[in-house]
């Protein structure tokens, strides 16, 4: 069984971002970039399926600028077998990413595609569901547990009221939620080994996909800031304030 994992290069989880001076976007020059944390969970899950003997090959793909090779190498160090970069000037919209991934799926013929549920930069939470729609496959979005069978995959999904279990016919698309697993710490020898694993580069044209845009960002700004209030001495003072000053209890 072959698994395709898609990863995105984003501003690192720990970096505080600021709008560009002209408000046209977010300042990402000279900012530390990393693999999207949810995608790291997706890679980890694929590697675990291989370690369980259920998957035989893991192909990891990324779409974006040439520096995305760094996150692909990171995924190879975690245990993916080979990588594909679809090189573009900027990060395309989720629908375009889904179309590029669909074209990769048609080339690679995986039995399962795993993605992170959302990227922590644009917070869209769309690509996996869109890819599943374009392929006509089932989708296990916000997955917290996978049981991979021969014909079907059983997925426990995190939903607002609790958990839902669905069974998807294979091939299928999964998007990883936080509690699917905890990604491993990568050891140095594996980082060295990853440098020798194959990494192919393609252009959107090779995949027959046109990079169309339907969204224009007009402005990016910080939301109004909340001011810190006052400190209260004890529970009695707190209750008095909540009852008498702001009247919420």
């Amino acid at each position, binding site marked *: 069984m072959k698994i395709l994992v898609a990863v995105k290069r984003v501003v690192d989880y720990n970096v505080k971002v600021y709008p560009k001076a002209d408000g046209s976007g977010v300042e990402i020059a000279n900012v530390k970039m990393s693999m999207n944390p949810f995608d790291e969970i997706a890679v980890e899950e694929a590697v675990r399926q291989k370690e369980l003997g259920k998957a035989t090959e893991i192909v990891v793909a990324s779409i974006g600028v040439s520096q995305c090779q760094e996150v692909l190498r990171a995924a190879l160090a975690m245990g993916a077998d080979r990588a594909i970069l679809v090189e573009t000037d900027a990060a395309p919209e989720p629908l375009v990413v889904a179309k590029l991934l669909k074209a990769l799926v048609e080339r690679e013929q995986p039995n399962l595609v795993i993605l992170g549920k959302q990227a922590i930069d644009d917070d869209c939470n769309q690509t*996996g569901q869109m890819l599943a*729609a374009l392929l006509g496959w089932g989708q296990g979005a916000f997955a917290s547990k996978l049981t991979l069978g021969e014909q079907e995959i059983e997925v426990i999904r995190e939903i607002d009221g609790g958990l839902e279990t669905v*069974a998807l016919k294979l091939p299928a698309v999964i998007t990883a939620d936080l509690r699917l697993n905890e990604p491993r710490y990568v050891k140095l020898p594996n980082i060295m080994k990853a440098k020798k694993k194959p990494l192919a580069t393609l252009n959107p044209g090779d995949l027959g996909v046109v990079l169309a845009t339907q969204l224009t*960002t*007009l402005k990016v700004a910080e939301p109004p800031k909340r001011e810190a209030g006052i*400190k*209260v001495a*004890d529970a009695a003072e707190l209750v008095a304030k909540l009852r008498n000053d702001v009247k919420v209890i």
Partner: protein
Amino acid sequence: MTNLLVIAEHDHATLKAATLNTVTAARNIGGEIHLLVAGNHCAGAATASAKIPGIAKVLQVDADHYARHLAEDLAVLIAGLAKDYSHVLAPATTFGKNLMPRVAALLDVTQLSDIVGVENADTFVRPIYAGSMLATVRCSAPVTVITVRGTAFAAAASEGGAAPIETVPAAPPLGVTRFVGQELTTSERPELTAARIVVSGGRGMGSGEGFKLLEDIADKIGAAVGASRAAVDAGFVPNDYQIGQTGKIVAPELYIAVGISGAIQHLAGMKDSKIIVAINKDEEAPIFQIADYGLVGDLFKVLPELSAELDKLPPA
């Protein structure tokens, strides 16, 4: 002319609250609003929908394969209907987030996630980077597919309207996904995203036992109980308690954060609350920077005191 289709979230018998906030977002765009109620034996939810003032028409669809609201099957139905509309909207709940990108892809259009503002019929405001930034975006797609953040729009009234209910035929099932089961958290307390007061615990609670102290407080003031990601990951409480960027977004009148340090991913889920109270033993905790009232102290001492003070309080 704008024609808007709002996808109702419901349990077949009743409407989920987030549907009403989505109707308000649709009204802010302007135009004729239709509400789609797709399920199985969902006359109850359709009747409730018809009572929302300002709805021109309710479309009711009943079929076995809509009983579990599987995105795979609903998306085919909605994409088929969408050709008659300029906008299709759903709540940005796990229901809407699962469904709407699938609808958009079938229509070959982009999707706007989690909007918090409507500038005009094609321009919207949405949070990025866990809400630390707001982006104003213009959409040029022939159909604008949107998920709506409920806390950013007031709930529409649920009584007073009398829209006609039209029955619409189901689309064929896609047959790729089978519902197996559900494990829902049951609680006597208010629903987290609709509660007037939320009491929320973090890693500082130390254990699931620690949360009992919070539940005691919550029951005295009619609050819902939430948690930070750290508390959920530690197994103190179930996943559906999680408030934050990847959990639930809440904006109650009063939010009491206990033993929560205030990571940006948590703040993303609660910083629009009207009054924020923070109780934490670390006076440097970032949560104090956004709290209206801060109380520095050991929560295992403060919570019993708070409970006793609430007992002394005369009825409001």
